């Protein structure tokens, strides 16, 4: 009997086993804690004034509804149940934090305002400022993508030329070593003067910050390709073009992805700093602007959006990497 068949059978017997009390309570924790959040929000008296009370309650109700639906599905679908059982303790913990946070801020007013707003207040910023936040997010995304793509592309080409042509290395390497380690944001005063507008200036800065790590890691990757790959390819009739495009580059992919990842991290930094200092749009600008009005709840809202946005970008990055480096499946450890 093969392994798969054995697994199937063991899964089936597991299906028939009734759920233990422990499993049931684990899953039931989530709706219970959401209901507690809702009750304290609705019935404990406020000490801070918030204008989006009903919306926040509605949001909690929607989340509660979905959690109950999920649990209902989970009782007939084993994989949904397993997922719930796995995630439920953590999600419960998140709601516990929300409860404590709301109580010590909105309900008891223990933390100094306006620096530490309640979660409801942050939610208020998202509701009330949604238009501006959406536009800021789009501005940031546009700047990030254009800058990052240019930087990654130029860095990739620079890295390959550095690894392949000794002459190029001789002339370009010193500049790379000198300019590369300088944080791109240090150039802001110069760049804002040199470029015609703040958008092109920031694009340049993001590209510059990405360029360095991508070119260094591409160079490293191509330079450390095992010579026997080239030798085998040569005896198979490969010309120089083939050696670069079909041997050196794919062989360097793992290293290139490290560079792209480092570049992505630096480009986030450069993006936000550039927006705070020069560009009149984007999430960085929004934070700066909200801080100017001492509207810290808006700062937190922008930070929250930024966290979600950047994690999504990183997640997409890893998805793409896993696709391209599929041949390393089982060997990759980051």
């Amino acid at each position, binding site marked *: 009997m093969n392994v798969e068949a054995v697994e199937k059978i063991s899964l089936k017997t597991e299906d028939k086993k009734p759920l233990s009390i422990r499993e049931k309570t684990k899953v039931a924790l989530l709706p219970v804690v959401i209901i507690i959040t809702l009750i304290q929000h609705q019935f404990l008296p406020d000490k801070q004034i918030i204008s989006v009370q009903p919306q926040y309650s509605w949001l909690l109700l929607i989340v509660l509804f979905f959690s109950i639906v999920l649990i209902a599905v989970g009782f007939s679908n084993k994989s949904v149940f397993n997922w719930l059982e796995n995630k439920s303790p953590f999600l419960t913990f998140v709601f516990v934090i929300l409860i404590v946070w709301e109580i010590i801020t909105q309900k008891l007013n223990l933390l100094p305002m306006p620096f530490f707003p309640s979660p409801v207040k942050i939610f208020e910023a998202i509701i009330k400022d949604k238009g501006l936040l959406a536009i800021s997010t789009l501005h940031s995304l546009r700047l990030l993508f254009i800058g990052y793509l240019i930087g990654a592309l130029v860095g990739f080409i620079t890295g390959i030329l550095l690894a392949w042509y000794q002459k190029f290395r001789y002339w370009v390497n010193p500049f790379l070593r000198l300019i590369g380690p300088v944080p791109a944001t240090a150039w802001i005063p110069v760049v804002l003067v040199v470029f015609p507008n703040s958008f092109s200036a920031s694009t340049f800065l993001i590209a510059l910050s990405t360029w360095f790590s991508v070119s260094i890691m591409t160079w490293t990757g191509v330079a450390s390709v095992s010579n026997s790959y080239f030798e085998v390819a*040569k*005896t198979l*009739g490969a010309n120089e073009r083939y050696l670069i495009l079909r041997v050196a580059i794919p062989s360097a992919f793992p290293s290139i992805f490290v560079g792209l990842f480092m570049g992505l991290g630096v480009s986030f930094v450069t993006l936000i700093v550039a927006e705070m200092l020069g560009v009149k749009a984007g999430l960085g600008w929004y934070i700066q602007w909200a801080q100017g009005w001492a509207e810290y709840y808006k700062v937190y809202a922008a930070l929250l959006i930024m966290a979600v946005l950047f994690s999504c970008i990183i997640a997409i990055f890893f998805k793409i990497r896993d696709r391209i480096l599929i041949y390393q499946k089982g060997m990759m450890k980051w």
Partner: protein
Amino acid sequence: MVRSEKGGHISIHNVSRIFEDNAKQKIVTLNQVNLEIEPGEFISLIGPSGCGKSTLLRLITGLDYPTTGSIALDGEEIKGPHYSRGLVFQDPTLFPWKTVWDNVATGLQARGLLKNKKEEVDTFIDLVGLKGFEKVYPHQLSGGMAQRVALARALVNHPKVLLLDEPLGALDAFTRMNLQDEILRIWKERGTTMVFVTHDIDEAVYLSDRVIVMTPRPAKIKEIIKIDLPRPRLRNSVEFFEYRSRILETLHIVPDIPQPEYTI
């Protein structure tokens, strides 16, 4: 036996290869080697390690150049790597980012012929007995299977000469014997000239038409031993052992019978 193509004739004429080390000291790796390899012949180069047999092989591939002398394939001097001379290393050196199919297809792809010759790739995967493994990546293959892929990859260009640098050196004894038979079968089917570097005497006797025994550095050809046994050869026949001991004697590695250190 129908041979699908003809092997190449290699003539090695007065070839020396001298390396310079860091202290500008000259190291003579090959000294005045002369050898004619007939079309379709199976030749083994054998000798102590570091004796320059791999250097000679590299010179034939064109990845390295002789300091003096010349090597020609079918009368044409070798001036660099060419797909008419296939190479298989001890390490299969499969491209890890390519599937088995893509690895085997490399030669055709590099020459821009892949579009019209896709079925060739399947033929060679079939030839080395890896049908069904086309979509597998190298890290999922065993050592023996990886070496089969390397063979198929080298053969896909229909080389006139196949150069094998200790291709079975890293494999276990059973896989090794199994692949020896595979190599013989492929050689018989295709008629490619084979130049096989090994340090395994049994392997050399089992496979070759002629065994070239080389001296330690600077390497010269010490003796050429023609193996006059019908194939398939019996590894445990008396004649087999005679050839084996003759090579051992040539290499001076038959020890005196050890004397016990104690007296009764």
